[in-house]
């Protein structure tokens, strides 16, 4: 079965000054920032409340 991503080649790297990082690792960091922002901004679904003071 063919892989979803063809990994049969050397990884692509980004070189910037002393920083040497693979493209895949940069993508993971970008996704982490996206998840962090989404976790702060997205509304949280409200479940069953057992307190009348919930919204105070």
């Amino acid at each position, binding site marked *: 079965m063919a892989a979803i991503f063809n990994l049969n080649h050397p990884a692509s790297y980004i070189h910037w000054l002393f920083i040497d990082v693979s493209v895949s690792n940069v993508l993971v960091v970008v996704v*982490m920032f996206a998840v962090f922002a989404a976790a*702060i901004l997205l509304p*949280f679904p409200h479940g*069953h409340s057992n*307190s009348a*003071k*919930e919204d105070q």
Partner: protein
Amino acid sequence: MSATTEPPRPAPRAWTTRLRERWLEELPPEKLLPDGQPSYVSSWIYVLGVLSLSSLVVIIATGTILALKGPNWWHDTGLGHFFNSMHLWAVELFFFFMVVHLWGSFWTAAWRGGRRRVWMTGAVTFLIAIPCALTGYVSQQNFDSQWISTQAKDAMNSVGIGAFFNLMNFGQMYSYHVFLLPLAVVGIVGVHLLLVRKHGVVPPFERDLLAAVAAGSADADGTAAASPAVHTDGEQSA
């Protein structure tokens, strides 16, 4: 000779009694297993800690199975590959969620209100998890692990701690990976969780400040002491 009437001495209490009383005082059952959480916990940012913990559970479960079956199984069988992959991806997710959880804790100054130990145990867990993962990469028993172990050995030597660890010694690395470091991670995570239960989830800045102003205890720089009131109002079911 007259008999003296000394007041009866209190019976010496066993260390188990003292420990139990101290435990119940510090962490009563209603704090350990609460019925609800404050309303401000209704945010996705507070879910990241639970996701980290869930990943850790999968890591321990799959790692236990891999340890029972051995390298031939995880390299040469389909089911072994599956569990090996589960173990790897659970580790990837563990670090992913843990780092985002760390960011959330940092930017909300989660050490406020006497929660220094909560923050410190979380940070130490992150630091110990790094060598835990590294020893896993060098314990794979394949070309990848050979390459990583030689590179890591040079890295250890370059920072002057190569005398204490031999990254090319499979037995040593495997012992670290399946026993010593996981024991440390699970132990510190356990303490972290108990401390979170004891102190409660850190409230948002505004809420903390309002409570402090109401109590007249806000510092000049706006930092506030812990206010038990903010932990109890606005509760909702967990």
